[in-house]
């Protein structure tokens, strides 16, 4: 038959996902930054010269001003004469835990609620989505403050609080996407094949949600890191003297003009980390999409 003989030219066998990820320059850049931050956070005790919460004798000038970056203090010192480099590395631990754990839990809750509501529909879906709407209407910050005030503030409690207020957007988006996926014809085709509901859900709906989840997951990292910073600033987040990138900014923001590095450096770190996760997420989304295969 004429039509079957003119097949699409045979492509090289698909390389592994890793291999294809590493072929993208931006993804490699993102990976490098993430590796740097993770490495710095894990090996902080061996890298730093001064403990993060020690107020150093020569950490302040004669007039009590923080020291700008120098040979002795790589990133300068803060208002209390603590080494900013040490605080940044230890703060990376906090920020990564918040960014990954809190955001991961939020994503998980959001997906669960969204998929169940979108796939089951009926009154279960209605109840779940009205609850989501309620959560959305509630000021997230106020809720977070309430929750954090009830529990004893600690890093893990802060992470859970952030997860509990941040899942709503994910749930909304996933719900909409699930409902439209469930209406697609290939789902109807699966039903006519006799596929069970769980098979349709896990084999045919969830894989299609992966790109959305990657985008929301990577965007959520910067949002959660900043939310943690806000909570810390309000005194219900990570308690001083434990450093986090967020509370470094907020502790020092009033001296922004006199000592710009104190705000600029942690700010840039948050930005770079969020960017790195976004770049890796983007690349991952493309690599995992079979319709993009051969385009890289």
């Amino acid at each position, binding site marked *: 038959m004429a039509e079957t003989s003119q097949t699409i030219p045979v492509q090289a066998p698909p390389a592994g996902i890793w291999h294809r990820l590493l072929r993208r320059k931006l993804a490699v850049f993102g990976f490098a930054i993430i590796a740097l931050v993770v490495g710095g956070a894990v090996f902080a005790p061996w890298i730093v010269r001064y403990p993060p919460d020690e107020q150093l004798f020569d950490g302040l000038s004669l007039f009590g001003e923080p020291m700008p970056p120098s040979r002795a203090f790589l990133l300068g010192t803060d208002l209390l004469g603590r080494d900013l480099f040490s605080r940044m590395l230890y703060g990376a631990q906090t920020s990564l835990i918040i960014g990954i754990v809190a955001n991961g839990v939020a994503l998980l809750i959001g997906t669960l609620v969204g998929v169940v509501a979108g796939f089951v529909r009926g009154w279960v879906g209605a109840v779940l989505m009205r609850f989501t709407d309620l959560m959305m209407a509630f000021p997230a910050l106020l809720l977070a403050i309430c929750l954090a005030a009830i529990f004893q503030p600690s890093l893990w409690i802060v992470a859970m609080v952030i997860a509990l207020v941040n899942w709503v957007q994910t749930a909304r988006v996933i719900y909409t996407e699930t409902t439209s996926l469930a209406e*697609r014809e290939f789902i109807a085709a699966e039903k006519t094949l*006799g596929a069970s509901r769980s098979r349709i859900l896990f084999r045919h709906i969830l894989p299609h949600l992966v790109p959305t989840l990657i985008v929301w997951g990577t965007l959520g990292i910067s949002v959660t890191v900043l939310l943690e910073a806000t909570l810390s600033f309000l005194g219900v987040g990570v308690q001083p003297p434990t450093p986090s990138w967020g509370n470094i900014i907020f502790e020092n923001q009033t001296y922004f003009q006199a000592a710009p590095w104190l705000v600029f450096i942690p700010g840039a770190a948050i930005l770079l980390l969020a960017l790195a996760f976004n770049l890796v997420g983007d690349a991952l989304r493309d690599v995992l999409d079979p319709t993009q295969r051969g385009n890289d």
Partner: protein
Amino acid sequence: MSGALPSVTALREAARPLLSVRDLTVSVRDRGVTRPLVENLSFDLHPGETLAIAGESGSGKSITSLALMGLLPHNVSVTSGQALLDGVDLPSLPEPDMRRLRGSKVAMIFQEPMTSLNPVHTIGSQMIEAMRAHEPVSRGAARAAGIAALRRVRISEPEQRMRQYPHELSGGMRQRVMIAMALAMNPALLIADEPTTALDVTVQREVLELLRELQDSTETAVILITHDMGVVAEYADRAVVMKAGRMVESGAVADLFASPGQDYTRALLAAVPRLGDGAARGKPRPPATRAPVARLVDAQVHFDIGANVFGRPTHRVHAVEGVSFDIRPGETFGLVGESGCGKSTLAKALVGLVPHRGHIEVAGHALAGLTTQGKRDICRDVQMVFQDPMAALDPRMTVGDAVAEPLLIHQVCPALERQARAAELFRRVGLMPDQMTRYPHEFSGGQRQRICVARALALQPKLIICDESVSALDVSVQAQVLALLDELQRDMTMSYLFISHDMAVVENVADRLAVMYLGQIVEMGTRDQVFGNPQHPYTRRLLEAVPVPDPAGKGRTYARSKGEVPSPIRAIGDAPQRMPLRDIGHGHLVA
């Protein structure tokens, strides 16, 4: 006037052409590589003439029309050649000048009238805007001209229509509005890009007849872009046949159909299903005496819509209203009707995708009241092949897995054997087993439909429902898929429920058929009974409306319908009147 009058065609040949396309090449730039989509296309178009550009998908016919209108996508451009309209080269015209020309001198009608009309503006405001964009006329004058234009395309109550929104009109009316808008400025050239592909046959006939009448009175030249050789034969004076961006052949339609000069044209014309070919194929299979594979007795499908203050539905869609028929083992049962007649809903009810009332049984098991396991078992007996294979395949699953999916769901064989069985199915439908690791988007439309057929075959069902399964395919591919279905049926003794809007295709494949209208069957019988001796007026109308791929049949008269098709949506409690079927001999049932 005296002496021998020169023929109209000769006169036209002598006159200067309105549009002269010379060596037009349109290319796309993709990642720094330039690839031609249309190559060295040349043709002339004279005033009052209809030129058809015919070809299958990917032949570049739509790109040609967009190039003439100056509406190419940003990465596509005319790289060489000319298109002179009254001596003005369209591709080299700057955008502001082109904009002035568009709508006034060159107008275009698109395939899908719903997407080309703005849904948030009334018909009237869109028409008035379009006119005032080209001529400084007052709103009142433009409005009057708009009403006159609507009246010209025979839209009833034009004053009323001016105040309506596009969604309030039917597909045929919307396309007529588009024509009215296109012709309102008396353009010299009208480009119609698949103007009737999205419409039902009876509506298609009306729209094309209308276009021809208007053309006769205005001397507008028309470029008719179509894949339908029947439309070419009936409505075009000359035709250009395109394939993969190149012109294969051009000439007067009568000559082209009588003696095609190129193999491709010949193959294309041979692939077009024609009414009457089915009868020539031989006698329908003798009715088997065994139990039917599917039996419908007074099947009904209703959907409740709307809600009053108490949340009770106010209206009911009578999608399927009391349908009864049997499908016998090994036969092909055709189900024809226009869009909205309920034929697809009936198919969905048969596979349990929508709830039904009445009695439907498949392979001896009633569908109603089945347990989950029972529903799953029914799937082994009845399978479905959908219209759009791209939509029916999971884009994130390899086609090998898709074909193996039913084997896995029903645990028909051990995991190791599954791949081998899937490979066998691939070979069976004419594909290579080494293509199994690919994804659906890497295949052509016809190949994808073969994959869907393979998936439906996997469980060796007794009945396969083909819901418009070949409608979206090009004619040559359509012929191949139909041949495959026929071959499979002979080897595996399956039955098909073949649902289609295309009378010619159904005539070619069906042993028996039913004609559906507004949820009810109006005529049912063997192919020879229904096509040889159509009794119901609706069946006759459908048959007359089918464009015949033979220019000799041009100018047949066609009775115009009296208004719009009634709606199957009715207030609750107001059930439609049932049309009882009576036997007029040998099982030929007519309402």
